[in-house]
């Protein structure tokens, strides 16, 4: 239940972000990360971005990123 998934913010309307979630488009609220902006990587849990990720850390960190990179190579 505490699963949180990294995603990239594609567009932002108020606190409502359209995110790229491993290739799928979804929405997440940025109420808990008010400093988030378009292009940021965030960690999304239960519909809310709970932290902003450093892209370098995120790419090194998450297996899902490596799988995505594998798909695009």
């Amino acid at each position, binding site marked *: *239940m*505490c*699963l*949180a998934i990294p995603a990239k913010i594609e567009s932002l309307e108020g606190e409502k972000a359209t995110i790229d979630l491993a290739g799928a488009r979804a929405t*997440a*609220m940025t*109420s*808990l*990360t*008010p400093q988030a902006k378009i292009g940021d990587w965030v*960690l999304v*849990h*239960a*519909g*809310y971005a*709970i*932290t902003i*990720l*450093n892209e370098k*850390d*995120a790419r090194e*960190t*998450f*297996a899902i990123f490596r799988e995505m990179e594998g798909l695009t190579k």
Partner: protein
Amino acid sequence: MNHLAEIRKDIDSYWKRLSSGGKSVVQLMEICGTHTVAISRGGLRSLLPEGLRLVSGPGCPVCVTEQSYMDAAVHLSGISDVIIATYGDMVRVPGSSGSLEQARCDGANVEIVYAAHNAVELARNRPDKQVVFLAIGFETTAPATALAIRQARDEGVTNFSALTAHKLVTPAMRVLLSQTDVRIDGFLCPGHVSVITGWREYKPIAEQFDKPCVVAGFDDEQILAGISEILRQLADDAPSACSVYPAVSADGNPQAKQVIKETFDVTDARWRALGVIPSSGLVLKGEFTNFDTARRFDLPEFETVEPPGCRCGDVICGRCLPTDCPMFGGQCTPREPVGPCMVSSEGSCAAYYKYGTKR
């Protein structure tokens, strides 16, 4: 040498130091359902030295939720104008009179939501119904509930309420450390709870009990890096709190902590198997009680009756492994679960069953 090989080399070297100091058994507890699953999925136990044991703690929110809560949810689902909105994990958990899934088969209105604010939207779209949101989970999930309740209040969505049973992780860690029949040499602390709380939350525990408390991420390398750091601290006899997960800061997410503080009061809470733990739960503050399901509906008292023979309680306290339960894999399987640890996708029993974990 790749990173994983380096971490394993470190683990072996710390283990040798611990062994030469006379320690032949070290037992670490993870308190995060996602770690439980990742450890089993990655077969990480097989990469660790013999004598280094990993046990699961009360890290699966569904598993620590009392059966009486499920009974209340199933009872509410039987009221004709109620829609139950819930995260998917809760649907198949058996209560004493069946699960929400069974209630749905009998005509109850049970909707799975992926975000708390979706439950508010559901209520807005169905003004003829009462939408009851099952608000369980740890610090990670509580801010979403808090924001949903505030949204319902601000938008005047009065047919929305939450049946709250949010819990806090560190009070349970303290109770576990005071149990004399469970050995815990260090904690692998939850990654996403800690994104909210920050790793400094564990510092008082590390200092008071002399136990390493290390936050780890979720891929194989990060979990092994967390284990390696715990072993280093044990070998150096320098237990402390820290994080090896880059997403976690010392003080966590200030907005999330603030919204929890402004929406909930800390209260005593009843945990499955652990009983009532002082100051371990969250209850809505007075100004939000209109959105408290327990106040809106006249709920009967439900007694907690554990399924006979089920050892979920012992599993989530680290007293036994899932495979020690006589029902494991026979009477109790993911298809026909007896206890919550076999139902939840983050439950230890489900993880052991799915990945065939031997030790």
